[in-house]
């Protein structure tokens, strides 16, 4: 059988517009072939954070499982978990280690208020899905607390509720103290949506509020979902690989250059002109026919590459418009109107052939209190709305969240700031574009 390949190369530029790698094989950007993306996914998958401060407060007051649940008879007013956090950490580590040399990591953050648990590879290999860190980390914490404070059997169940919340009466850890970057499998919209449960806030936290890196990381998770769900095979492979390279990894410096040219005075409409001009210069589109009024209809020479260019424009327009107002909420408006204006302007197809427009429209309703819903930062690609655009919409949402200056009720720092601390030192998360480019070249060399 012939191997599936996309025989193309791109030049990748980093978030400051500097060339980081030339002639990167597009095929090497496939997460299944890219060591850097695989490492990111592995680290995310094995990580969970237990909020010891919350556990302590719950146990001291008897407020277990979130709102409306107060059971004072379970309260242990004297319990001092945060004070003894180091001893609990040692116990948890002893529980989860499978061998002395495994890569398990248990660490304390925020003066013992938060406990990081990263499971070893061997445990993950045994698990059927990605819930092991939450369940193993949670169970280990419960037992560590029970052992440390010598809690009697009747009150030990309160410890489990303080950590796991109302689970298993609910399908997720409602009211519990387990923070995971990923949502629980029972909340998945469809099979294979695991990587889409990472919220915009988590991504922005990891990227330290850098807009371009947020888009890159978001793209990694979306691409991994595409692999998982069987969307990166056959005829759609090139569409998404090129989209990932151009929109998320700043290929040919298209996004950066557009934002640089229009950062001071640009509008969504001017971004469209910039993208049209660049696409014409690069021969991605051409004139098809001139109408009697003088209006020219264009057609794509390379449809998939044009889609990647259009997606770049969508991200650049988000950066220009949301960046100018330093406010995330307008991302939905940009997605709808960018695409609408683009097709009225040229007769060319819009991003992902109409899906982005639809997503933007519902996103507008959801983030502007027409249908309830939520805030831009809380959005995940696992949402019934954002799931309809594969790959292309979520990077815009993340970039917008990153550019917000404080108009969000639930900003990344408040909700998921801990993830920024955990992954601070990891090169792949620190410099995603560089790492992915390097790994893609390596993958390409290995295949030749």
């Amino acid at each position: 059988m012939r191997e599936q390949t996309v025989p193309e190369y791109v030049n990748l530029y980093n978030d400051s517009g500097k060339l980081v790698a030339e002639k990167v094989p597009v095929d090497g950007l496939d997460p299944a072939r890219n060591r850097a993306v695989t490492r990111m996914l592995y680290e995310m998958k094995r990580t969970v954070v237990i909020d010891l401060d919350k556990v302590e407060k719950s146990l001291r007051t008897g407020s277990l499982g979130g709102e409306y649940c107060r059971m004072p008879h379970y309260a242990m007013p004297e319990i001092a978990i945060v004070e003894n956090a180091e001893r609990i950490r040692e116990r948890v580590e002893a529980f989860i280690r499978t061998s002395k040399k495994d890569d398990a990591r248990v660490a304390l953050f925020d003066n013992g208020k938060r406990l990081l648990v990263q499971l070893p590879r061997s445990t993950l290999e045994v698990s059927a899905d990605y819930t092991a860190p939450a369940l193993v980390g949670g169970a280990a914490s419960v037992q560590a607390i029970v052992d440390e404070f010598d809690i009697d059997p009747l009150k030990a169940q309160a410890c489990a509720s303080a950590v796991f919340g109302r689970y298993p009466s609910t399908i997720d850890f409602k009211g519990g103290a387990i923070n995971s970057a990923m949502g629980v499998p029972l909340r998945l919209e469809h099979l294979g949506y695991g990587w889409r449960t990472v919220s915009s806030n988590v991504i922005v936290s990891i990227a330290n509020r850098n807009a371009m890196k947020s888009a890159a990381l978001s793209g990694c998770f979306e691409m991994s979902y595409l692999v998982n769900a069987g969307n990166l095979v056959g005829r759609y492979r090139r569409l998404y690989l090129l989209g990932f390279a151009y929109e998320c990894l700043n290929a040919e410096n298209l996004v950066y250059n557009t934002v640089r040219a229009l950062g001071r005075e640009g509008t969504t409409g001017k971004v469209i002109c910039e993208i049209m001009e660049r696409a014409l210069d690069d021969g991605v589109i051409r004139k098809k026919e001139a109408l009697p009024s003088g209006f020219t209809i264009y057609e794509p020479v390379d449809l998939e590459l044009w889609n990647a260019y259009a997606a770049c424009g969508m991200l650049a327009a988000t950066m220009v418009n949301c960046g100018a107002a330093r406010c995330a909420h307008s991302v939905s408006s940009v997605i709808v109107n960018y695409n609408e204006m683009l097709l009225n302007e040229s007769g060319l197809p819009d991003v992902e052939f109409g899906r982005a427009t639809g997503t933007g429209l519902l996103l507008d309703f959801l983030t502007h209190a027409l249908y309830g819903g939520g805030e831009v930062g809380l959005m995940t690609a696992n949402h019934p709305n954002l799931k309809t655009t594969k790959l292309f919409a979520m990077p815009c949402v993340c970039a917008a969240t990153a550019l917000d200056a404080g108009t969000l009720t639930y900003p990344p720092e408040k909700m998921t700031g801990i993830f920024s601390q955990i992954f601070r030192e990891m090169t792949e998360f620190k410099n995603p574009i560089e790492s992915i480019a390097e790994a893609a070249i390596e993958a390409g060399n290995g295949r030749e």
Partner: protein
Amino acid sequence: MSNKRDKPSNRKYRPQFCPGKTLIAENRRRYLNPDYKLKKIRPLSEEEITRLLGFRAPGEAYKSVHPPLEELGEPDCPIRRLVEPTPGAKAGDAIKFIQFTDSIYFAPIMSTIRARLYHWRYRGCDVGALSGRIPLEMRERDLEVVAKELLETEIFDPAVNAVRAITVHGHSLRLDENGIMFDAKRRTMYSAKDNCIYYVKDQWGRTLGTPINFGTRTSEEELKERTCAYRTDNIDFEEDADEFLRTTFNVYENRVRGGWGKEIPKPLKP
């Protein structure tokens, strides 16, 4: 990209906005074109705009949602260094809105074109187009500047366009005996004395101390010249249908090609 293209004036590509050869299409292109200066037809003071929006008393400080950017200290992000924040964003203003209702009876502009106009002309805008109303959210001081242009120029007529934060119903109802769009909150008042239309209430329907004069209503003949909506009793869409449909067909043909992932599927045999 070469550096010479960084300046907008060096760009080769000229936007075309929409197909069509009728007056309606021309009006659309005129309104959407950011290089075209909208004709001013009535003067409104900044104080009147503030009162009409109804978020603060004239002279009162802007409410802020976060400290000014300088005090806040921005995160290290190259995109933030490239994108200049608007004055409202710099000061940390709260997000406020203006909402329009545009009559189907020859209003100069209506929801769909309004949304595109905002995105062609203004930075930092957040607009959601609905059939009978269209809110525009922005940082408050930016909003006031934009609202001034929207209300003073040829795209606003006090009889068939209206500023309504709530109770927007009326865009599809027949006009009253004075040619004014229905408003359950009666925010506008026609004065027979000077033939002018006054806003006697702000966009929320709260009575204003001093009414705001928006001048005379435009005659139907002139509105028919200025409108950018196709109507069978004015300029029929049929006159431009060929161009629009050819453009739309091109979009859909390529959408199908992309969605199918190959060339256009062959037609099924009958």
